């Protein structure tokens, strides 16, 4: 700051910021790449004055005080331009002369990111590192007690069912009475969860879709991907790849008229319809795609004029009770595809999940329930919603599963778990834990952004600027200057790599359990945790 300017309550120094740019004058070659790449203009070329005092006590010596200047990289302290720690500067630096470092204490910036009374909004996950799922161990290792399976040698059918599985007698009754039984899909248990065309850049979206198509068509893995709420490109709707796609309908209903128009021209049915009632990252809050992200492309796919903000309200506008919403929405969506496509709701993790589940069990059309826990990611949300709202997914899924057991329906209505699966990189272990707690499969969003596209966001609040169209990797930006950094082909390749390696790891976990032909859904005797309270809460073994 200017040396004689007055400070304000929000005047910050570099020390007060969450990230400090460490810059090495000796190594820096002043090439300008770091300042050119910084997504938030947190750094600039600075002119630095350097005083050189030369003194001596020798007789007749002259004392001098001169000044030189030198150039270097200076970090801005204006909260608008505060470093987000993405380290793109480090990435482009030819001399390793620059790197952001996390502050050694809680930053002061957090007290000032509410200029004009506007609380902080951001993308990413809640800023709490670590995961309970990581603490769960698989303690049942069958070496001699069950046929010991070899993950590398045995063939595994790691598939799960999405759809309502009626008991045989009821199936017969249904066929007799209605000539219809609920559709069921056999799919891979790792699903790419809903991230909209708009929240993601076109290159990212295409990369994910292409990777999924490759997995299906080249490797025979029935992987499915949810569109999120933002419609679906007309070409995809009219292609055979649609069967790999779960179409999401949410409170904004964006893109649904385009979907409806394309129904007569669809070559195949979509995998399923996901009705989004809530998002784990920001429960009870809606979405808002800011007008500047709504370019002509997004607008075309969402079926809106460009340049307007697109709000998705926190709730569906015409639904007033569980019974009504579930019945009404499920019926409507089933009808669209002649009752051939499973329809299920997705809710954010909540202490009321059981109420929803109980309602679904009474509705023979309900194809499943997806629960998105508090560790889920988002493209944009209020910091307070992200950090403080929501329910952990593990206990939510567990409660639901145990309740299904209680009423004898655990094989009839699949549960899907989402929210922080693979948060610390342990995707297969987290997925397996959730499956053994009772989930039929898991959904991932943020993980795939990190693994398939190099998302830099972290729970130490690194980057997390998905909401302002400045994604330095081009994952969540609609600016071609940014999203062209991302090659859809390479994203697709990474998606493939992720699923193959996940598959191997999942086999490594389930093989010693002696399972090869069905997922160990609810096989909680295989789980242990060294936390007594968590063990009690999840009804799994306490192991130390």
């Amino acid at each position: 700051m200017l040396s004689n300017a007055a400070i304000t309550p929000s005047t910050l120094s570099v020390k007060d910021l969450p990230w400090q740019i460490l810059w090495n004058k000796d190594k820096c070659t002043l090439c300008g790449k770091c300042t050119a790449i910084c997504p938030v203009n947190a750094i600039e070329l600075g002119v630095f004055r350097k005083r050189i005092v030369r003194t001596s006590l020798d007789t007749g010596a002259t004392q001098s005080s001169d000044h030189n200047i030198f150039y270097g990289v200076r970090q801005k302290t204006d909260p608008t331009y505060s470093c987000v720690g993405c380290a793109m500067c480090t990435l482009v630096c030819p001399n390793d002369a620059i790197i952001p470092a996390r502050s050694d204490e809680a930053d002061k910036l957090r007290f000032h990111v509410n200029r004009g009374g506007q609380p902080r909004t951001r993308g990413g996950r809640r800023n709490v590192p670590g995961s309970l799922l990581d603490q769960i161990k698989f303690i049942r290792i069958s070496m001699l007690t069950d046929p010991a399976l070899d993950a590398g040698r045995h063939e595994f059918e790691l598939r799960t069912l999405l759809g309502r599985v009626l008991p045989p007698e009821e199936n017969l009754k249904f066929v007799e009475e209605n000539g219809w039984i609920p559709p069921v899909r056999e799919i891979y248990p790792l699903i790419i969860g809903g991230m909209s065309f708009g929240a993601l850049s076109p290159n990212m979206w295409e990369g994910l879709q292409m990777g999924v198509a490759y997995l299906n068509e080249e490797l025979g893995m029935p992987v499915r991907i949810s569109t999120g709420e933002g419609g679906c490109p007309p070409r995809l709707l009219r292609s055979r790849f649609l069967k790999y796609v779960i179409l999401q309908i949410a409170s904004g209903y964006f893109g649904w008229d385009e979907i409806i128009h394309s129904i007569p021209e669809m070559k195949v049915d979509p995998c399923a319809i996901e009705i989004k009632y809530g998002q784990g990252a920001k429960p009870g809050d809606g979405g808002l795609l800011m007008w500047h992200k709504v370019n002509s492309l997004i607008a075309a796919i969402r079926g809106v004029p460009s340049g307007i903000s697109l709000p998705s309200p926190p709730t569906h506008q015409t639904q007033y009770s569980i019974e009504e919403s579930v019945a009404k929405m499920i019926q409507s969506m089933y009808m669209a595809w002649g009752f051939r496509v499973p329809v299920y709701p997705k809710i954010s993790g909540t202490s009321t999940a059981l109420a929803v589940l109980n309602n679904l069990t009474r509705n023979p059309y309900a194809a499943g329930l997806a629960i998105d826990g508090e560790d889920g990611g988002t493209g944009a949300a209020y910091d307070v919603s992200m950090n403080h709202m929501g329910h952990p997914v593990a206990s939510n899924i567990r409660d639901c599963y145990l309740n299904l057991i209680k009423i004898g329906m655990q094989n009839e209505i699949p549960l899907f778990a989402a929210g922080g699966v693979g948060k610390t990189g342990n995707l297969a272990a987290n997925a397996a834990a959730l499956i053994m707690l009772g989930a039929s499969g898991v959904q991932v969003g943020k993980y795939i952004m990190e693994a398939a596209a190099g998302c830099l966001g972290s729970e130490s609040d690194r980057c997390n600027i998905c909401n302002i169209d400045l994604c330095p990797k081009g994952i969540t930006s609609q600016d071609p200057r940014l999203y062209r950094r991302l090659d859809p082909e390479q994203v697709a390749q990474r998606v493939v790599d992720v699923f193959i390696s996940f598959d191997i790891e999942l086999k490594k976990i389930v093989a010693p359990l002696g399972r090869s032909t069905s997922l160990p859904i609810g096989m909680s005797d295989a789980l242990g945790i060294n936390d007594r309270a968590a063990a009690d809460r999840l009804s799994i073994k306490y192991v130390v």
Partner: protein
Amino acid sequence: MDKKQYIISGKKDRYRLDSRVLEELIQDAVARGYRYLKIKAYGQHGIGGRLWKAGKEAIHIEIDGYTGQRTGSLGFPNTYIEIMGPASDDVGWLNAGAQIIVHGNASNGVANGMAQGKVYVGGSIGARGMTMTKHNPRFDPPELWALGSVGDYFGEFMAGGISVVCGFEAQTPDNILGYRPFVGMVGGKLFFRGSHGVFSQADAKLVSIEDDDWNWLIKNLKIFLESIKRPELFEKISYRKKWQLIIARSPQERLEGRSRSMQSFMDGIWEKELGKGGLIGDLTDINRSPIPIITTGDLRRFVPVWENRKYMAPCEAACPIGIPVHKRWGMIRDGRMDEAVDLALLYTPFPATVCGYLCSNPCMQACTRISDSMSPIDVTKLGQASINANLPELPPESGKKIAVIGGGPAGISVAWQLRMQGHKATVYDMAKRLGGKIASVIPDSRIPQEVFSTELERVEKVISHVHLQQRLDKKEMEQLREDFDFVVIAAGAYTPRTLPVPGKERMIAALDFLIQAKQGKAKPGKRVVIIGAGNVGCDVASEAHRLGAKEIMLIDVQEPASFGKERESAEAVGATFRWPCFTKEITEEGVMLTTGEIIPADTVIISIGDAPDIEFLPDDVTTERGFIVVNEHYQTTDAGIFAIGDVVKPGLLTDAIGAGRKAANAIIDIIDGKRPLGDTRRMIDRSRVSLEYFDPKYFNSGVTSFDDLDHYGSQCSSCGTCRDCGICVAVCPESAISRQEREKDDFEYIVDETKCIGCGFCAGACPSGIWNLVENDPFTGISGGMA
């Protein structure tokens, strides 16, 4: 040693011997020197293995009956086992050298873990044959031969050795290799004859049989067939074309892995189904191909803009006249001292009088240098030098006429500006000479008279139509309105304000006092109290002291608003300031306050401002509380009448001169048929200027070693106006910036966008804040490929 067989039965009496007991009997026989054993087996485990006691001598074991699991397991190179019927599981398990012949089928696990030796099976074998086999380079590779077919999962984790499956009288002729063979195979090979199913392509591959391989096979096939006593089959199964060879893939080959590249999938499947451009090819033409992260041209997120002279320098913005002080220092830097001095006359008729002496210099108070605790460049030196400024040649008169009522600073300023632009201005004033308050009120101590009179002479050269000692009334005003295109009222404020308190007649108005003082007529008493401690009050204090007053006090109802030279002068003569003081009455003793206190005074002077005397003003011109109401161009509610200076609002000399200039510009715009806009430029953000280039020790308080104008010029940061230093050219890492000459001695710095990466170094380094890094225009590139 006799070749006669030593017979050991697996039964004693009616009881089957334990595997342990039979093993002891066999080991004992070998120890006793028997080398030909015949075992009657009853399912005992591991017969024939571990027979090292014979050393290098061969042990021949013939097994009749039902041999148990793991026959020949942990076998030694000296051991030759012949099983005369079929074999149970794991024949040759962990075989380390034994040769084992099975005259029949063998069940699961044949040769599992075998490292040396041979297993010859005269029939088919069960699942998991030849699994986990090794080849230790110290020994020959292990071999497994089967005449028929092999069961499922053959060759899993096979790490070495040779197996041969002849496919003759195969149990599963459609697929003699069984289900999923060679998973995890990393070494070894398999010769086979017959049809096969799917085998692990990731681990193994089919290759053609080279001559060396074929020669080995033929040679050993004969031995095998002889061993299993079927030599007659040689002709039948030695047709080379029927044989195939599978070998393990090398680690390098495994890495190549996947069958179809993603690019091939995208081209051949993805875009074939969706159409060119993939998912959204039908919705947009925008090029989505990959780009590098450091980009140039259209693909830059930010671009530098050379914003020369776009913003006002803080000095210029702070000057009520709008004199671009930094521009004058720039001319001095360029060695154009005369132009720098002359330039002032474009803005003010009194550059020396005002800038050099009377002005409180808001330009210096606004100087960017202060924000880095450096003293501002002293403009008074430049102001004083302007006494010698040369008038430009005046343009011919346009025919437009403007009447200016009042020949003070405001009136002279507007007339001066109008005449400079070629319009005739006629000035009317009540006084005997031009100059208004500068001439009549401001103490001589503050302005050397020769400076003022020199500038006044210059004024008179420009404004030739002056009518002095003219007091206007309403009628004459109406006439002026008729006769002139515009009338500018600059009559000043000459009616002193006073306080409605008892004894007010004892007070002298500051204005009157100062006029008399300047004429040498004022005679203040020893004790002077001045009510109103503003700058005029300070002038009064100084003059009172000059004229003999000893104790001078200025009182005010609030903290005095006086500042600058006036205040300093008053303090220098020992005047004291006191507030808050509310005057109740003026008595013979002095000033009585509302508190009852009396401040003794011989002379009381009231200095709370002056009001305009505008009785001549037409009724349709709006006033408010005695002042004329104007818009931002000093236009009154009559579009043809302008009002400036103290008739509008009391202010500084520079306010009056600036108002004159602005009103003149507005009038000129209207004459030119334009809507007057005034100066729309904003002041530059000081933080854009880099003061680090300047040595703070220069001009710090007390340091006066640089008092010549050239040095001042060098230390001006030239905010917002390019000083043509070329630092940006030097600092640009991509050499994208160059200097271009333009017409009329002007220049421009331009950016080559094919080189620029938008790093903003130019903006960071610019000493004057000219370069700005702005967001690039929204990207519309339909084609723009790699930058």
